[in-house]
């Protein structure tokens, strides 16, 4: 698990976001078993109550489901998975728009740059900025 927690956002929200990313990219597959709350707390070095809260919230949002005493699993509902992906994309695009607007970059120029830089590897891009 590769997750860097910051200390200002609620930890449970950061955990949910991490799961959403994994679901959207397909690293966590529909129906896949996930770590128990305690395993998660232990891996991420977070409070077990917080892990519990993240799971409860994800359960309510339909991202995961639990049958009886079995380990929780990722949802098989394609509508939800599609929605998660769209949500993450929209969020990233909005963040991008906000930062690009704050330095007055016209749409055409931004689009041009996206096309030009999209396939470069991240290190190269940093050099260009």
């Amino acid at each position: 698990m590769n997750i860097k927690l910051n200390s200002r956002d609620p930890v449970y929200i950061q955990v949910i976001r991490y799961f959403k990313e994994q679901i959207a990219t397909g690293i966590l597959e529909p129906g896949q078993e996930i770590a128990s709350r305690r395993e998660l707390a232990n891996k991420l070095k977070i409070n077990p109550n917080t892990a519990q809260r993240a799971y409860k919230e994800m359960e309510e949002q339909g991202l995961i489901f639990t049958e009886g005493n079995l380990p929780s699993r990722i949802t098989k509902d394609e509508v939800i998975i599609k929605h998660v992906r769209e949500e993450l994309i929209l969020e990233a695009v909005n963040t991008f728009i906000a930062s690009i607007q704050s330095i007055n970059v016209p749409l055409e120029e931004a689009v041009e740059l996206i096309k030009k830089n999209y396939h470069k590897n991240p290190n190269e891009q940093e050099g260009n900025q």
Partner: protein
Amino acid sequence: MIEVKDITKKFGRKKVLNGVSFTANKGEITCLIGINGVGKTTILNAIMNLTPINSGEVLIDGEKIHKESYEKITFIPDAITMLPQMRIADAMQFMADFYQSWNQVRADELLSFFKLDPNDRISSLSKGNTAKVNMLLGLALDVDYLLMDEPFSGIDIFSREQIADVFTSHLVEDRGVVITTHEISDIEHLIDKAVILNDGVVLREFNAEDVRENEGKSIIDVMREVYQA
């Protein structure tokens, strides 16, 4: 629940605790934060009735502490209280003789968790390993509440990580933990509740996730706010 109600404590003419109140729930990790000399250890001593208080009271699950309470709550001081010539095995035997709540199965589990050898003498251990033995002796008691005084102070980063791991494991599960620290950054994501102390009073008592959620602040942000106000 541990309820600390308006306790005051004087050492001679010096007032150390000036009306301290807070609560610590079972199943939660509560952290007393404050610079050195602010009265953190005195509060833990007062909860355990190891030092008389001048006024106020402490209730554990609604009761004042009594003889049997020591099977329900334990205190892990900042330095080990066993004799240095004892082997770890002797120290465990000492605890087993003394407490009904001693759980040897859990003690053995902790030994392997911390990678300790029961035949080692306490005097021969490194500082980090001494701290781990100290933790082990407290954690292996089947008690509902654990008080730990500065479990992270003065030990190396890896031992610190190992001790922090205990908090997310089943070894602490469902118990109420009160720890004191002057260095919060290591354990910021581990604690449920923070109680910030200064000059013998509680400046602020809050749930860490609530403050992140409602105010967008880290525990350190809140500390900066209250100390610099």
